[in-house]
């Protein structure tokens, strides 16, 4: 498997600014909401990309990663963390949202080997759902580790199981699955993997990159201005220099981020 240092943007064409209609907006777990929309999803090239939602009365858009896309149906998982997402959670079926689509490079499915490990933490599980579907249709064997603070916060477990992938849960308080962090759950895996994809809090993704000996990809989160690469508000330091999370990412390889374990040397 050749080591890729950077990921090409999965770009199908231009960005699209479209009106979407809310099909459903329901609370899956405390503060965690699943939003289903219908509209023109043609600019969305694949998993790991995100959309920017305009909310009435809010100046900047809210970036949310694509959880699923099927035909003209778009599914987003989001957490209420501030006034914008709180406003979004109060929106009802039939209401409309103006959304920018086609943002970000997305995961590179072709980079993985046959046995793939997906590691998600909290809302970071969202983009891994569409990724799992893409990997399965590409003939890969997929196992998933999902980490949450506690049992009541678990999201998408059943949806992942319904895809037929092996799911291991970790909770920080031990109320379900492996007690501890996703890294503790990774230690319990018996099936081998030759590539990983991760999304979640930065500290978790760094720990996953350091623990997993294989190459992999991480999807980063950063507070954004534009979301399409012109304002340089969401810059991250990489071994290749400063990169924009929104336009050069949000997905970066472990090698790009320099997040391998120190003892690995140049292996990563």
């Amino acid at each position, binding site marked *: 498997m050749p080591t890729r240092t950077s990921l090409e943007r999965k770009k199908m*064409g231009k960005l699209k*600014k479209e009106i979407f209609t809310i099909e459903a907006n329901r609370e899956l777990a405390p503060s965690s909401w699943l939003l289903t929309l219908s509209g023109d999803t043609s600019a969305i090239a694949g998993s790991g990309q995100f959309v920017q939602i305009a909310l009435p009365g*809010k100046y900047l858009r809210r970036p949310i990663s694509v959880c699923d896309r099927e035909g003209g149906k778009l599914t987003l998982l989001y957490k209420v963390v501030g006034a914008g997402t709180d406003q979004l959670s109060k929106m009802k079926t039939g209401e409309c949202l103006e959304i*920018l689509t086609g943002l970000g490079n997305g995961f590179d499915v072709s980079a993985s080997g046959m046995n793939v490990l997906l590691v998600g933490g909290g809302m970071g599980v969202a983009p891994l759902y569409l990724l799992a579907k893409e990997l399965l249709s590409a003939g890969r064997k997929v196992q998933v580790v999902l980490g949450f603070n506690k049992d009541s916060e678990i999201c998408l477990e059943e949806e992942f199981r319904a895809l037929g992938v092996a799911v291991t849960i970790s909770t920080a308080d031990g109320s379900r699955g492996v007690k501890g962090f996703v890294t503790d759950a990774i230690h319990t895996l018996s099936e081998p993997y030759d590539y990983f994809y991760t999304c979640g809090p930065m500290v978790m993704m760094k720990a996953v990159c350091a623990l997993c000996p294989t190459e992999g990809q991480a999807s980063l989160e*950063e507070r954004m201005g534009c979301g*399409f690469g*012109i*304002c340089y508000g969401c*810059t991250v330091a990489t071994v290749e220099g*400063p990169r924009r999370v929104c336009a050069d990412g949000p997905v970066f390889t472990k090698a790009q981020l320099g997040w391998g374990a120190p003892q690995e040397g140049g292996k990563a």
Partner: protein
Amino acid sequence: MKPANDLSVRLGTLSLKNPVIPASGTFGFGLEMQDEYDLNLLGGISLKGSTLEPRFGNPTPRIAECREGLINSVGLQNPGIDALVGEKVPALRKVYDGCIIANISGFSVDEYVACCAKADGCEGIDILEINISCPNVHGGGMAFGTDPRLAATITREVKKVTSKPVYIKLSPNVTDIVAMARACEEAGADGLTLINTLLGMRIDIARRRPVVANKVGGFSGPAIFPLALRMVYQVAHACSVPVMGCGGVASAEDVIEMLMAGASAVQVGAENLRNPYACRDIIEALPAVMERLHIEDLNHLKIE
């Protein structure tokens, strides 16, 4: 009599196809947007601020939402003047035939001069816009923009090393904008751009800490439009050099209002961050607004 739908304006010695210019820092180096729409619709493009050496900029978070605007503390992230004149401008020039404005920042007079000397040798650049007003960097930037003597010194020294038109971009974070403008004009500035962002702040009340890592940043967006318009009006009526009006412009009507305040061209900033098509939409809306207001020519709209 100009033909119908002629949006062209005079900006000093230059002619722009229309007055609409994305402001520095809100349109990257132009190339980022070339797949999204035809850049040649734009009257000009003010490129991301450049410094002598490459800069990473400030730590993140760099952006904070505000009512009718945002705070940024990007801190002049840029690949340096050599990359600007050697790569960015030549690449943009290949696809864009309008006015290319290089925005220059520095931390000392020598640095501004060195940057401008390099930019002077770059064929694709039409205007040098000297940013003496960035609120996001320490030990320079805005300090030059709040002291008329320093602003005059920069203007004078920069003019010595370039034959390109030099526009000084002014900070609103002063008590007397006219004094700043006059100092630059008297020192030989060919024009002025105003305003840059206002120094602002937001606090995350749940976490009890500033939203942006730099604590403070530049506030921009529609909320600052009346303030920007007032400053453009004052300066345009006190100075004789052309003014590029900037600050909170979000519509074709705002563009007309800026031109009536005395601007010769109008920069659109924050709006590009919420709507990637903002400048295109404004340009496309201008003819109908002109017709409604019985305006045939975007020059000479300045009111008393």
